[in-house]
């Protein structure tokens, strides 16, 4: 299986959130994202800092929600991926 690059991992996380209605539990993100806990934590921190996702409190439980900026990023990232894949680098 081909190793996912950083862009693909970010895209997978955001698309997973989008599929789950834009709102997801950290455990679902962990299984669905196919990442170790440490790596996922790193990605979540980065995505939060970039404003692509946000942490929300739902009845005392932590959840993550994709922002409008995150939804726009999905479209942009798909285009970027399609072009870079075409070059095969």
């Amino acid at each position: 299986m081909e190793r996912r690059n950083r862009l693909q991992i970010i895209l997978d996380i955001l698309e997973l959130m989008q599929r789950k209605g834009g709102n997801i539990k950290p455990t679902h993100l962990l299984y669905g994202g196919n990442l170790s806990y440490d790596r996922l934590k790193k990605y979540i921190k980065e995505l939060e800092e970039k404003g692509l996702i946000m942490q929300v409190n739902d009845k005392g439980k932590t959840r993550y929600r994709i922002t409008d900026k995150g939804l726009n990023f999905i479209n942009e990232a798909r285009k970027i991926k399609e072009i870079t894949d075409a070059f095969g680098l």
Partner: protein
Amino acid sequence: MIIRLIGINWLSILDALIKFFGAFIALLIGIYAYKAFKATEKREYKLLALGFFLITFELLVYAIAIPALYIFYNFKPEITDLTRVLLLRISHLFNFFFILATLFAYTLFAYLYSKIESKSVLILLGTLVFALASYSFSFVSGVGFNLTSILLLGFVCYRTIKNYREKRSKNSLYVAAAFSLILLSHAFFAITDLPSTSNYLTSFLKIAFGQNIMQYISSFIQQLYLLGHISQLFGYLSLFLVILRAQYGKKK
């Protein structure tokens, strides 16, 4: 395909228009590659972006130089011999930037596809490109430049075709086709530059086939020059298709 002052005709105008179109496409791909670099921090995308920005630069140099020099050289009243010499020098300078940027971009692409990590290889290749471009500064012939381009693009074509055979996607096919068509255009331009490069060749042809042979060759060269431009245009159109498909389509 070298900037010249003499013999400018409608083909040169077509040339300039194709270069503007190519510059626009190269700029778009450069921007996407740069965005990919920002998202992934992968060095390959940074170099790919740099390569396409260099292509944008060289195409713009060419597209602007042709009409500007043409107007100065042919329409300026009371042009002195000194001005003509100066214009000739300026055209050589444009050539220098054009060749340097083009070959450096192709070198970057070849380096990227070679998957060599070493920076010293890139520096060495860059030095060789600079030496070749400096040589071309005082020697207005496209043969050396076009042959070097063919060699570099040949390797890039091999890798992009290989990528297409692995992925079997339309976009990878368009990229492979684009590089192949641009390579083909350099082959056409190399042939068109041959008679102006070699006095021995022209003398031999005149002796072997008579003085009239040069008229036939001139007409043949114009056709090859046109084919070179058509090939180049289709190369850029192929890259444009990749952008359009990424922007609006989803089909693989």
